[in-house]
């Protein structure tokens, strides 16, 4: 036996150390899991009176509380989709052009500053975007943009009556959210686009392709999955935004089809209604929170799958 008394001591001392180490690790991992379960559980439990009573009408109903006593979140679900999808469409179009420009068109010296600026802008707190949106963009839109938009065809149907345009509107919400998610989208999509292997680009040019043909037929298709992942990430963030949109959208409790009138979203409604809510109102808001959580969960899964698939694809090539 090579083990002496001394080394047995050392061995057992280290085995105590070892089990302490893994116990602490496992404990914290377990604690985290418990906290997460507590978090979700508390939300679901508080929402239970409403979730159990009226699960379907919660999603389809259009009135909130009042004398009927039932809570329908459809206007807020609609508003969340309106604003977040609208914002992401704008952000993706402008963002792709921006990313392509950064990677392929702007001179080397400016590139590093631009990339750093984009990443820092992605870290700006959302309430600052809300402040800018409410105090700067809102008045600007009311003064210059809304009157101009009133001249578009069929404006009455999808924008509303020009005399009734309000400072707080769905369109303003879409714009503010678009500006907010743009830096994050550009940061991710730029990286994806920049990682398209150089020899694919050289091959495209060698066949006689023009710059735009190379971009649209080679670079963008190769980055497609990653861009989609970045877009769903942006969508998830836009859908969950509270304070950026709170002052912006107005808090109208119905389904809003006119873009220049006020509307509401799930997150903003929760925040704005909380102060005056009754007991059942609070439960309903918790239920709305559950809805928001589910939507965000689905979007997050989609985006993570996409980004992982893109990473795998690039590794293989």
């Amino acid at each position, binding site marked *: 036996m090579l083990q002496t008394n001394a080394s047995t001591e050392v061995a057992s001392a280290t085995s105590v150390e070892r089990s302490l180490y893994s116990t602490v690790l496992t404990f914290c991992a377990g604690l985290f899991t418990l906290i997460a379960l507590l978090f979700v559980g*508390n939300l679901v439990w508080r929402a239970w009176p409403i979730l159990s009573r009226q699960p379907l009408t919660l999603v389809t109903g259009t009135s909130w509380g009042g004398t009927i006593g039932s809570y329908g979140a459809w206007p807020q679900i609609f508003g969340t989709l309106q604003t977040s999808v609208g914002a992401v469409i704008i952000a993706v179009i402008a963002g792709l*052009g921006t990313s392509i*420009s950064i990677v392929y068109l702007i001179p080397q010296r400016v590139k590093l500053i631009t990339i750093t600026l984009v990443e820092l802008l992605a870290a700006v707190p*959302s309430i600052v975007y809300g*402040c800018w949106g409410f105090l700067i963009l809102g008045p600007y839109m009311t003064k210059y943009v809304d009157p101009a938009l009133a001249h578009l065809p069929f404006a009455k149907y999808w924008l509303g009556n020009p005399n009734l345009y309000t400072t707080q509107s769905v369109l303003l919400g879409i714009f503010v959210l678009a500006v907010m998610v743009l830096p994050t989208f550009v940061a991710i999509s730029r990286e994806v686009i920049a990682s398209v292997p150089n020899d694919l680009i050289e091959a495209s040019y060698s066949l006689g392709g023009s710059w735009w043909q190379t971009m649209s037929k080679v670079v963008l298709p190769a980055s497609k999955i990653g861009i989609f992942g970045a877009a769903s990430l942006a969508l998830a963030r836009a859908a969950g935004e509270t304070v950026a949109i709170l002052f912006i959208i107005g808090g109208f409790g119905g389904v809003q089809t006119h873009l220049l009138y006020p509307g509401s979203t799930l997150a903003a409604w929760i925040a704005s209604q909380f102060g005056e809510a009754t007991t059942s109102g609070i439960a309903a808001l918790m239920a709305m929170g559950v809805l928001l959580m589910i939507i965000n969960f689905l979007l997050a899964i989609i985006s993570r799958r996409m980004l992982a698939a893109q990473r795998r694809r690039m590794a293989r090539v």
Partner: protein
Amino acid sequence: MSNTATYTELSEETRAEIRRVSDAKRQGRLVRSSIMKVLAPLALLFAAVPLISLLVNLISKGGRYLAHWSFYSQVPSSPSLFSESSIGGVSTAITGSLLIVLCAAVLSVPIGVTAGVYLAENETRLAKVLRVIASTMSGAPSVLMGLFAIGFLVVTLKIQASAFDGAVALAILMLPVITIATEIAVRNVPSTYREAGLALGAKKARVSMKVIIPAARSAIMSAILLAIARAVGETAPIVFVIGGVAKTTLNPFNPVQALPALLYSDIGSPYPALRNEAWGIGLLLVLFVFVLSFTARLWSARAARKFS
């Protein structure tokens, strides 16, 4: 393939037709390409204008607040509907924010880092579950953390509106961020470090504690800084539960103010003086976040260099 003919080599007519068509189409596609070469930077410009407007407004409107010491030292005071100044400072919001974020860090960093190390070193069922949980929670809308603070801390545990409530809400926000980043940081330590330690006869736990985790230190610190940077700017989790009392205190169970919450009330305030102050608070927050993010980036660059 449409017809039955087999082609072995390009015939002369085919070659000629290819030449002819491509010569004819060339101008058109070159024009299209030039147009897009202009449109793409235009998109960049279109995206840049609002973002630059944001930065310019922040700096020009908020700068004058940050230049005066009174902004940092004085307590907020009631404004009048007519004057644009003498509204005091935001000292209580600064101290409140610091207290809340510090408590949040104390709560979330130990658990988060340890859980992250667990994830990096284990592949048990708990690890797989935890990973899914962490990545899901890290993208959760922050208003849900506010709902938790109200629903659990205030109503169930009957803890009054205080810094602690806000700290717990922020801690839940920071936990997944820290855990995920710590796992990445530890996994990024080259396996040669562990192999060397094991080859010297040390046991796995000892190697982890004495070699791996210290090596990942810079990256972990960077992750913590980023989580703090994010937490400092969050409004929705804390605005309803911190109490909003303009007093500086070291006791986390007292109500406090916070910078984002003050900003929130300033934006919607009827007093123009407070609406202007909002820019000062906004700029302060942005600068704070920038400094933290920049430092975090420096540290993670240092960590990356160490391993290359």
